[in-house]
């Protein structure tokens, strides 16, 4: 009836289990097999057409004439890529946007490892943004002046993204804190702003920015078109990010703030050092989604006459020398956006996993 162990049981390595095979996953049961066959058939039906269009009949070199009555007109993209990427920026000066894009790429790559998240990197970004703006504008640093109305393509997309995030995020944090504040005026204002912006389509906000802003300002004061689009994008980014941050704040137990206050930290210190770092960590996935939406939203400036990537692509399509290969152009633009957004999403996933290791 009673038992006492005398010798400990050996700790053994786990037996090697064969991973469930791909075949089992594909043909494990009737439903799986059916699904497999169906998906394969659809793919087989579609692929040859796609291949013929893109490769067999595709035109890789040549001019507009070569593309008439042919498959995909890749030659168009070859000819137009500089224009799509840099818009109407004067051709002789295109090295400047190229350098600006380079600055952002370098900064981004530099900022990836966590150990580079330092104050210096932050200043690096600020310096980088300022440098890119000066370089693009040119006047202040003694280059030919290129007005913002002539900026275009990818640099615009990147600038709008980076700036609307850089300005929108701090604003979002303040709005989120304001919305949770015990002080009614702050709370109403933050809530009002957030809900107003979130209730309106970005498109109509861009309209307002492009049409109404001049009416809102005193006679004679004008604001740059690019800047106005930036303001609209920043407002929208701030409102959306604020809601995400608020969600994160709600997920931080009240005890954290109390513990920080009990140690003598001020409210601002408690927020900055204890609550916000946790709040933001908690919401990396929705934050990622929101940032991706913000990146994609820059494409909407198309409707207010700026030459962003998509807009420049469409202007390129109106060139009478070419038969307007829409699908190819949109595919290329989609690919650029996809690369940016997807890379960002993967990075955020990685971040979430590594930051998550802090907890058990």
């Amino acid at each position: 009836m009673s038992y006492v162990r005398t010798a400990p049981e050996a700790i053994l390595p786990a037996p090697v289990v064969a991973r469930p095979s791909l075949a089992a996953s594909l043909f494990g049961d009737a439903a799986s097999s059916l699904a497999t066959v169906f998906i394969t058939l659809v793919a087989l039906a579609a692929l040859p057409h796609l291949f013929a269009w893109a490769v067999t009949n595709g035109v890789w070199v040549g001019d507009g004439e070569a593309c008439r009555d042919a498959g995909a007109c890749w030659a168009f993209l070859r000819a137009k890529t500089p224009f799509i990427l840099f818009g109407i920026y004067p051709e002789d000066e295109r090295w400047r946007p190229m350098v600006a894009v380079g600055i952002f790429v370098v900064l981004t790559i530099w900022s990836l490892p966590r150990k580079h998240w330092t104050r210096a990197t932050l200043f690096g970004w600020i310096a980088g943004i300022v440098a890119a703006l000066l370089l693009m504008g040119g006047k202040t640093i003694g280059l030919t002046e290129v007005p913002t109305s002539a900026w275009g393509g990818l640099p615009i997309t990147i600038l709008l993204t980076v700036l609307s995030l850089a300005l929108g995020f701090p604003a979002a944090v303040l709005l989120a804190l304001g919305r949770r504040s015990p002080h009614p005026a702050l709370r109403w204002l933050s809530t009002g702003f957030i809900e107003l912006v979130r209730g309106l389509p970005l498109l109509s906000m861009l309209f307002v920015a492009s049409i109404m802003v001049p009416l809102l300002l005193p006679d004679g004061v004008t604001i740059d078109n690019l800047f106005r689009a930036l303001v609209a994008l920043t407002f929208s980014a701030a409102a959306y990010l604020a809601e995400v941050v608020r969600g994160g704040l709600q997920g931080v137990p009240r005890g954290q703030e109390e513990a920080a206050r009990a140690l003598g930290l001020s409210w601002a210190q408690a927020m900055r050092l204890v609550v916000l770092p946790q709040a933001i960590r908690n919401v990396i996935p929705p934050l990622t989604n929101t940032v991706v939406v913000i990146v994609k939203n820059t494409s909407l400036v198309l409707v207010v006459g700026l030459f962003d990537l998509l807009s420049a692509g469409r202007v390129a399509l109106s060139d009478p020398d070419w038969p307007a290969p829409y699908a190819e152009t949109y595919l290329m633009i989609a690919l650029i956006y996809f690369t940016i957004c997807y890379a960002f999403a993967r990075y955020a996933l990685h971040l979430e996993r590594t930051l998550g290791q802090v907890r058990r």
Partner: protein
Amino acid sequence: MARGGARWRWWLPQIGLLAMVVAGLAWLAANVADNLARRGIATGLSFLDRAARFPISESILPYSPVDSFAWAIIVGLGNTLFLSVLVAAISTLLGLPIALARRSDHALAKALGGGFVDLIRNTPLVVQLLFWYGAVTIGLPPSAEAWQPMAGIFFTDRGLYLTTFGLVGSALPMLLAVAAGLVATAILAWRGKLRQASITTLATVMISVVMACALGLQRDTPVLGRFNFSGGLTLTPEFVAVLLGLVLYASAFAAEIIRGGIDAVAKGQWEAGRAIGLSERQTLRLIVMPQALRIMMPPMTSQFVNILKNSTLALVVGYPELNFVTATTINQTGQALEGIAILMIAFLMLSGLISLLMNRLNARIALVER
């Protein structure tokens, strides 16, 4: 103080802040008034009564260019609502199988589901809409060579033409039956009895089909005229592209919301379901989904608001929703201020309405807590 509340020491800065905001708004209003006067821009809503004179390519409300601007805007609003409701319904339905595919063990289904969601979510909706419009207009044959997958259905680059069945004789009993069914469904849904509501919907559809057959039908088949098919029901390429683009886009998001909802149900619930002998599918259906549904309500609310707002992009492929009609109105009348104001108020009201309805529904089905 941690839980200080609104103490007197805070009133002053708060009043100051409010005053600043009010002053700022007043300053802007003064500027607008001054600018309008200075530039001789006519303001007022009198233009709304004037004939619009421009055409609207399609609408669910009747419209002709002799109608007023006001009516044109209402027609645009009708299209926006129609499109949004359709997209919301279809994309939610489509989201479920995609979410389940992503969670399944079937390698191909999982990869396809994942690839679809990644692809859709990481490219701008405008680009997708433009792409689909190109695909629809370039991919389909001209009217003369219409593709006929089924008798009475024609796919052409002018749109999809469907045979419809009109009713002979008195349609009144049937309409009454359908209306009664819809009202019953609405009441049940309002009470949070979703199961009964869906059964009622199904019953309504079945009863109406049976009654339709009993009452007798008259086919209305599209016929190819000189340029176009006429008769039957037409879905224009613009509408198809917008619907396709918005539905695919929204369903990728819906799938993620549904998947998130399922994943967010505590693991213990799955285990408890299994432990009392329920199968995996029963556990999903009886235990997990009802709880996931509740978790999904808030993100679904934003999703529906987003669908409404995304519908404004329909203008790039020529579907005349509210934004498009308002833009045309502004262009025709030059009355930007009024147009924008109408647009924004309409959207704010619609977004508010969606939130209100969803919150009411949410309150109805919320888990009861102590």
